[in-house]
């Protein structure tokens, strides 16, 4: 099933990318080509083969529960696009009343 322009627009919303119109067209064709090529994995991945998410077999990794100094707030906020009163200042996250 080819990937339609509307599918690309939906994915872009999920990925928080405000893609321009020409990018949607260009990407629809390219994604379709790539997805068709990578669908090859379905040829060999039979039922019963366990998935590998990670090449090192390890469980939870713990450290001793000892406090360590963290970065000073000034050092972290120095890279912020906007800061106020020792906090990140962000655009509104809730809709207007």
């Amino acid at each position, binding site marked *: 099933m080819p990937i339609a322009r509307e599918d690309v627009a939906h994915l872009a919303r999920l990925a928080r990318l*405000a893609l321009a119109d020409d990018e949607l067209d260009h990407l629809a064709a390219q994604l379709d080509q*790539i997805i068709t090529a990578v669908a090859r*994995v379905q040829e060999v*991945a039979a039922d019963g083969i366990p998935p590998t998410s*990670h090449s*090192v077999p390890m469980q939870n990794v713990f450290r001793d529960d000892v406090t360590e100094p963290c970065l000073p707030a000034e050092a972290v906020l120095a*890279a912020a696009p906007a800061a106020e009163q020792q906090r990140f200042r962000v655009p509104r996250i809730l809709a207007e009343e």
Partner: protein
Amino acid sequence: MDSGIVRMSAADLAAGIAAGDLSAAEVTEAHLGRIEAVEDRVHSFLHVSAEQARRAAQAVDAQRAAGEPLGPLAGVPLALKDVFTTMDMPTTCGSAILDGWRPPYDATITRRLREAGVVLLGKTNMDEFAMGSSTENSAFGPSRNPWDLARVPGGSSGGSAAAVAGFEAPLGVGTDTGGSIRQPAAVCGLVGGKPTYGATSRYGLVAFASSLDTPGPLARTVLDAALLHEVMAGHDPRDSTSVDSPVPPVVAAARQADISGLTVGIVPELSGEGYQPGVLARFAEAVELLESLGAKLMEVSCPHFTYGLAAYYLIAPSECSSNLARFDAMRFGLRCGDDGTRSAEEVMSLTRESGFGAEVKRRIMLGTYALSSGYYDAYYGKAQQVRTLITRDFQAAFEQVDVLVSPTTPTTAFPIGERVDDPMAMYLADLCTIPANLSGNPALSVPCGLSPDDGLPVGLQIMAPVLADDRLYRVAAALEAALDRRRGYPLLDDAKGLA
């Protein structure tokens, strides 16, 4: 400026500095001079930190004068990929979204290099967030191949490779997610190693695909790569996927350079149609040479390797779409369109649209697709099963042989611009390198001569069992010594792009 210094190996520079025949300060000045002379043509660096480098070199000289012990690479300059955080230099990952970012902390790799007395010359160019095989995806323009300035130096660690092949630095550090150290090493005529996954720390390495990303060395000789590998590797409690086991004896292996009695497996799946004839010719000669040096040859089929590329281009974009969600315009980096009327979500979407380049967007979209409900099982799930099959292929092969070999790349360096808007053609550059990333096995590319059809370097890839990284260096050093003896001078003497 003594041009002799910039042609020296890291091992010889470190020995000269330790013996007092050379000062770290003069070694650093020689390399800064070389950068000054060639950088406008090769564009290896995004940022050169001359003052910090001079101070680091002076500290090494002072340490020596005071009779304090020096690290194995003390005073040796290095080109660091701009994907590792550095407190005293910008870290951009080749992206406009991080243009000018000053990280508040050093990566573990950065810290280990500093503690070993390595002199960081600056940060090198790369494909944006390490996604690419040519450095053409850098927001700051491509680097060029010192063998031929019209061609790519490979990628994504192409800036580090161009710096080392262009004699701007004897050592470079890169990261390898699908071949991003080995492929640039191959096309620039260098040695480039991807250690066992987890052997080198990812703390402070800006994440692309966390289950695959592996820092590793780039150098002009096998011994230099081994010396750098040893400085970089080791357990890091700050990286939960860091392997807590001793670093394999890679330096000793590089010095030993003896492969008599070793069984070398040739992977037929990584050969044939689509490979440049000159690449296959040099590879075949190198394999014969290994046999004449005492290795036993054997063909070993790894049937699922041919599915590696497909699995990789589902797994890596999936992880990238998740990892790059952190670029949300709120806490660091670029913020666009925040005019007081727009919501956080709108600002986020506008910033990411403007701050990411075409390939990064393509991969975020691909990963979002592969992980979305209704497609997850058919794509991401299946790719993870293929990952198991490839790991099993490696395990079965290493019951029969000590190492596997293949060409590192299907072709030599391609012209700048040739594949930039043809993603599938670009992805093919990683065809041979991807299996070792999916399984976590260590692998290394070592030069095996120049392709007879275009005169450009060809790399031979060696792959070894997990945590047997030392075998890579044993085989590579034996091949390097035999080829150097036959040629009579270093391979890089033939690189004329910057002559």
